[in-house]
């Protein structure tokens, strides 16, 4: 059996593959967005002065890092409707279940990334923000958080890419994302190489696009003026500034 380029191409351009890829990207993006929001809240609990808050935040991170994501998905999809009749309705789709599962698990990891990013911001920044009279929430939103985001961006990019590939776990709750789409194609035709290659190309294209987006975002967080060609003081990046 040789590699049939026709089959590969028709798989690559099929609406099933496109739909599968779209599901993977949408699931990863939505989950990541909510994971970041929940994770920020958990990170704030973790660095709070309040002992109870720190304990709650710590417990969240401990719990969701300890249990396998696969188990979380199975619990939400299979055990959920048994325990809560409301979840037996049609609106409770595999996509929604997977979204909830990925978001709450990923939030534990994002909480740790954001916690260390928040702690990495120099104390003098917080002090100066308080000194000019900013109230506590603005000290966080206007001064500390923007600087923490810069630190959190590269590891968050890692998480997003990992998340994209983890979406294949959702096949166990019958979500037909990208990898499952390839698997279904294989089981119908036994053309392993062609269908797996098509999936591979999709993943490469998607991750390349994500990395491009990440680079664009990181460029916005360089904090250098345009047209400045020298980086005079320590602590700045060694990159030459063009823009």
């Amino acid at each position, binding site marked *: 059996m040789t590699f049939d380029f026709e089959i590969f191409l028709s798989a690559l351009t099929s609406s099933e593959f496109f739909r599968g890829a779209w599901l993977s990207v949408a699931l990863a993006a939505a989950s990541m967005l909510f994971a970041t929001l929940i994770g920020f809240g958990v990170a704030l609990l973790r660095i709070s002065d309040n002992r109870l808050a720190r304990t709650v935040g710590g417990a969240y991170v401990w719990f969701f890092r300890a249990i396998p994501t696969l188990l979380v998905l199975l619990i939400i999809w299979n055990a959920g409707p048994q325990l809560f009749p409301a979840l037996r309705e049609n609106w409770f789709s595999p996509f929604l279940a997977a979204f909830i599962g990925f978001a709450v698990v990923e939030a534990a990891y994002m909480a740790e990334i954001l916690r260390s990013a928040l702690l990495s911001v120099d104390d003098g920044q917080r002090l100066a923000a308080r000194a000019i009279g900013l109230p506590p929430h603005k000290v966080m939103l206007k*001064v500390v958080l923007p600087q923490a985001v810069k630190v959190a961006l590269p590891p968050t990019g890692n998480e997003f890419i990992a998340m994209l590939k983890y979406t294949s776990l959702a096949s166990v709750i019958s979500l037909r994302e990208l990898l499952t789409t390839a698997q279904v194609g294989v089981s119908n035709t036994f053309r392993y190489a062609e269908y797996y290659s098509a999936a591979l190309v999709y993943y490469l294209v998607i991750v390349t696009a994500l990395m491009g987006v990440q680079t664009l975002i990181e460029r916005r967080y360089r*904090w250098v003026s345009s047209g400045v060609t020298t980086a005079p003081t320590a602590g700045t990046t060694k990159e030459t500034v063009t823009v």
Partner: protein
Amino acid sequence: MTSIALLETIGLRKTYGSNEILKGVDFSIEAGQVKAVLGPSGSGKSTILRLMSLLEPADAGSILLHGKEIGVESGRDGRSIPLPERKLARERTNIGMVFQKFNLFAHLDVLHNVTLGLTEVHGVAKGEAVHRAERMLERVGMSQRMRHYPSELSGGQQQRVAIARALVLDPAVMLFDEPTSALDPELVNEVLSVMEDLAQQGMTMIVVTHETRFARRVADEVALFDSGVIVEQAPPEQFFTAPEHERTREFLSHIH
């Protein structure tokens, strides 16, 4: 006959762990005065600025601005209790603070470092804030660098922007915490000359510093802190040439 103090501390105490840094300090400054504060490290001179700028609570004693106690409110039993952070933040705008390490906001360019307090604390409209910030940056000689980020500036330039950032909020008094200690020697003078201009324009200033020449030339009074108390306080001429206390003589002999 003494006039009413602009900023005054009464019996100010502060302890970190088992280390009593301020042992009941009475300190005051009148409107338009410049006071230089000298002292060895750990003497409490920086701590008193932190307390007067309401960045940290005192353990005991009070701070008065225009004769009115700040940083506290009266609790239900009539005793004064520290204000919550949100209300403290409001009162801080009356007191400008300049730090040894500048602490410019790294993610904002020079202009936005200066407008942030105006727009986010005083609710000044964007255009008006930019206008006022530009004027202030001109005053500290930084109007050519408004679009630069802190990492692109020298230490002296950063400190001048930091002065503008505090000044633009129109504080009643400016506190300087060793403003030139983190600077390369050749950059010290550009910051001191901005401060001297400020003093000549009538700004009330408390300057914790090691620059004795600046203290001698600009200050109306010089105070020596040691071990949490004010050892001596006198006009610069007397302080530097005929100090009353042995401790002052000893301190001066080390820095000259």
